[in-house]
């Protein structure tokens, strides 16, 4: 037995959620002229009406849904000086429920992975509050491109990790609906029709590299001579980190004047020079190859050793958005082939 939902019902549902005061985000054409002359640029963004939602005609959006649980800019608390006296006002945490519709499995799986770092020994209530408020309705992928490598990192087009509801397309119009969590069931209560038809599990991309060979290389210590050569073309921007569903580094800065303002948290990336620069001028990672090494080690050795899951879901955004087509995929393929 399976539950089905067709596109028009889905759009009606989205409009219903919006009218009930929920915030809804999903892939939409942000209509930017794509500079490589390809199709429109699709990004996850807040929707004002279901019509804006795009569920097909693209591989995956160029950004990720981490924006909705770990925003690029977030106020932590305010400070106000009244003469010599100082007051701290905690930031009001969001209260409105939010739904991410049409997330890719590699985005949803990333949320489950991030739960670990934001909750080991000290809980980050900013992240947890948004996570509780969010219901993720994932759309399984029918196609992939050369950048996708979810199957090489233990994920796949139907990965259920991190999803509250999984929609698997049967044909252009209908989806098989799998409610995976209570939140998912509550959200889609009564909207689906029972049926015996099952969606065929879509075929993921071929495995691109051997994970064990990669593990061996990384276990061989940090100062391996291959790094400078593999990563020489990296220009040190943050495009890979900021469009990656699992990258979660951040910076804390003060905004405002000496009399009052707010301390805020912004995204940060280990590829920037200033990320590890000491005030004394010493920089433990002064060379770009060290930073690329850190990014690969952190995702494929440090995070798994500490939290038990790879800090990568194989979405391919880092290579897709890299100005010099790097990101992790070419590096991993080179390393895995280097045995």
């Amino acid at each position, binding site marked *: 037995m399976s539950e089905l939902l067709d596109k028009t019902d889905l759009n009606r549902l989205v409009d219903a959620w919006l009218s009930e005061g929920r915030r809804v985000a999903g892939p939409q054409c942000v209509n930017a002229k794509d500079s490589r002359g390809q199709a429109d640029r699709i990004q996850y963004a807040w929707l004002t009406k279901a019509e804006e939602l795009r569920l097909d005609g693209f591989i995956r959006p160029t950004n990720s849904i981490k924006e909705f649980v770990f925003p690029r800019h977030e106020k*932590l*608390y305010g*400070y106000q*000086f009244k003469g*010599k*006296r*100082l007051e*701290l006002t*905690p*930031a009001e945490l969001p209260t409105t429920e939010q739904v991410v519709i049409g997330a890719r499995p590699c985005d949803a799986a990333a949320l489950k992975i991030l739960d670990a*770092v*934001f909750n*080991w*020994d*000290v*809980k*980050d*209530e*900013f992240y947890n509050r948004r996570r509780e408020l969010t219901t993720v309705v994932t759309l399984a992928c029918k196609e992939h491109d050369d950048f996708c490598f979810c199957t090489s990192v233990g994920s796949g087009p139907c990965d259920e990790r991190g999803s509250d509801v999984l929609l698997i397309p049967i044909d252009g119009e209908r989806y098989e609906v799998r409610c995976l969590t209570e939140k998912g069931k509550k959200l889609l209560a009564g909207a689906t029709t029972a049926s015996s038809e099952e969606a065929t599990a879509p075929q993921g991309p071929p495995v691109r590299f051997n994970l064990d060979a990669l593990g061996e290389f990384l276990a061989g*210590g*940090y*100062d391996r001579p291959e790094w400078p050569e593999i990563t020489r073309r990296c220009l040190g921007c943050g495009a890979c980190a900021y469009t990656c569903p699992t990258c*979660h*580094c*951040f*910076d*804390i*800065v*003060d905004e*405002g*004047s*000496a*009399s009052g*303002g707010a*301390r805020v*948290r912004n995204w*940060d990336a*280990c590829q920037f020079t200033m*990320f*590890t*620069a*000491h*005030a*004394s001028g*010493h920089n*433990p*990672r002064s060379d770009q190859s*060290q930073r690329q090494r*850190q990014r690969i*080690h*952190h995702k494929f*050795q*440090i995070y798994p*050793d*500490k939290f038990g899951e790879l800090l990568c879901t194989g979405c391919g955004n880092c290579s897709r958005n890299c100005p010099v087509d790097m990101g992790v995929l070419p590096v991993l393929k080179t390393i895995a082939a280097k045995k």
Partner: protein
Amino acid sequence: MSDNIYQPNLMEVLQIRQQTADVKSVRLRFRDEERAKAFSFRVGQFGIFSAFGAGESTFNICSSSDWTDFLEFCFRKTGRVTEALWGIEEGDTIGFRGPYGNGYPWEKWKGKNLIFIGGGIAMPPIRCAIWYALENREQFGDVTIVYGARTVGDMVFANELDRWAEFERVRVVTCVDPGGETPDFKGEIGFVPTVVERAQIPSEKSVALVVGPPIMIQFTLPVLAKMGLADGDIYTSLENRMKCGVGKCGHCQINQYYCCQEGPVFTYEQVKPLPEAL
């Protein structure tokens, strides 16, 4: 304090002492009384201090954990936050959150001879350990303190060096870089690694704590190894660039360690294979 892990406690500035031309030490007390009573820390841990409007910075808590009526930290004027901290006066309010990090493994150091080696502005992480050891004198063997700075004027907590020398079974060796001495300076002249080698410090049943600029640690660790100290008995405190202090923001990561959670105190054994540590 709400469960906002990033929100600091408000602290009253009790006393400010100028240690050198660009280094000050500041004593603080919690404005919130219960928080003051509930607060405790292990010597060697650090805190994140805020000058509101400028930002936050990481400094070692350089007072001993036995002193409960204030908390002290020390900083050099080098950046945006330290420049704002330079301007604070007694009675002002700044922020403090912590304690963070693992602190020194005192259980392991019980009954051992202690060798403290510090360089320049790195005196505070050593000073709190020295006071704790001297105020629990019976738990530890001989104490040797080697402290070097660029010039005599750059010595932090210089007045306390003489007081330490008066304690029994304590040996204090001070040194300045060549050219940094003054006529009445009685200490040695040379860099810390060479002075440590010349000092002929006995190494049986000893542990060493080395804190200073990365270049100094790099050249002192092999000297200690040559003196017969095992890699596991040499400790260092890596105060890397830190932002959140709670193992989330990624800034303090050195290879596989979150410096703010699993450090900043590491053994030479842990640090040796890490190219980015020093």
